[in-house]
């Protein structure tokens, strides 16, 4: 998400003032992401520096500082930048360093920790969050399209994490049933396997994933 490009998009309709930009940004994102007016002015300053927007000359003359009295319009370079940004796919090739995934990977190896209990604590929290989003969705009942899109995205994101926890729990159960222990899954052991053919189901990732396109 880029405030920069969101502001360019709003300015592509017509010249606008900072305060107006903030209000429209919030309305267009379903009011899920609050934005303070200071952020708007800072971003406008940078956009102006990069010649992507220009101040609209006002009857009172030009003031150096952006403020409520100053309107902005998008430049041709700004339009080109916006079009480029919309078509550029975000980099999803590298797995994010996910806190939750790390916690489960580590919980498997810490003596005295019940990994199923750790999984359940996270699952419960995720579902409680999903309940809150669902209640918001129900209250709004599709009246605000932007908001509905944001809520769908959040629910699907949280759902995917719950599904991963379900899958992880199933995988760990099978591994424990097969006699897996953290010692068996020590770094280096997971590619070779023991003489008995035991292969751990889980090991801390050692490979660095290359960039895939």
């Amino acid at each position: 998400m880029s405030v920069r490009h969101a502001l360019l998009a709003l300015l592509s309709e017509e010249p606008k003032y900072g305060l107006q930009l903030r209000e429209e940004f919030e309305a267009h994102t379903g009011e899920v992401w609050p934005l303070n007016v200071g952020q708007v002015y800072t971003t406008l300053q940078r956009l102006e520096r990069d010649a992507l927007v220009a101040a609209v000359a006002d009857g009172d003359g030009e003031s150096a500082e952006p403020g409520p009295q100053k309107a902005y319009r998008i430049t041709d370079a700004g339009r080109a930048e916006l079009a480029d940004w919309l078509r550029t796919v975000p980099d999803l090739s590298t797995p994010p360093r996910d806190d939750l995934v790390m916690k489960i990977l580590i919980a498997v190896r810490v003596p005295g920790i019940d990994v199923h209990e750790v999984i359940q604590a996270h699952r419960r929290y995720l579902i409680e969050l999903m309940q809150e989003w669902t209640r918001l969705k129900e209250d709004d009942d599709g009246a605000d399209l932007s908001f509905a899109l944001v809520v769908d995205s959040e629910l699907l994101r949280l759902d995917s994490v719950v599904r991963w926890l379900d899958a992880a729990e199933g995988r760990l159960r099978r591994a424990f049933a097969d006699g897996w222990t953290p010692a068996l899954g020590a770094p280096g052991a997971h590619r070779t396997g023991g003489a008995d053919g035991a292969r751990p189901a889980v090991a801390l990732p050692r490979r660095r994933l290359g960039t895939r396109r």
Partner: protein
Amino acid sequence: MSKSMGKSKNEAGSVLELRSISKVYGKGAAEVQALRDVSIHVAKGEMVAVMGPSGSGKSSLLTIAGTLEEPTSGAVLINGEDVHAMSPGAKARVRRRTIGYVFQDFNLLPGLTAVENVALPLELDGASMRRAYLAGLAALEDLGLADAARRFPDQLSGGERQRVAIARATVGERQLLLADEPSGALDSANGEGVMRLIHAACKRGVAAVVVTHDAQLASWADRVIFLRDGRLADQTAAPVGPESLLERPSWPC
């Protein structure tokens, strides 16, 4: 918790109460313990979702709550009355009059129209055909299905069939709705529609227990219960105000 209903024996006013339910299938080496000491209350107007991996006891819980199966030990109370102590006739009446069921595969009778399917439980309960028919029509109208009333199940879409099944489960004075994976094979929009309808029924005072493996569907419930190896492993906390989600720090530039 809703306020006490006065005449019922249980103080909490639960429509459904499961007390220390255990269920064992088979004997000896083939013995499977499906439920272990599970206790649950479901209050009037409350929607509870039950989640858990397959084999965790979700479906057993539902068939026992629906009096379709006896627990090995423990008690099932419907509106404060112990089902085990009821005469067979009284038990059948509770099944027909108080409890509505929604199954994964809808279970509509193919030879009956939508409205006849919905009216059937009332007719079985002794209502006149005309009264049952009118009540069935009203239930379909509530779910936006008045136009489909005279069509047969094979002339309805999957989403419509499921709405008919929900109308049948809530027709009359039913107080307890039990649903096993009610979104079945429906797509996500229709699956969500099903949960909206069940939630709406709860707002009218019906108590509902919905078994699902789908977190998005479960998130419609007031409370989510997690089963694991036949035990009640965990449940969600009481809901907080939804506004908390929108009180977030500002977005970084």
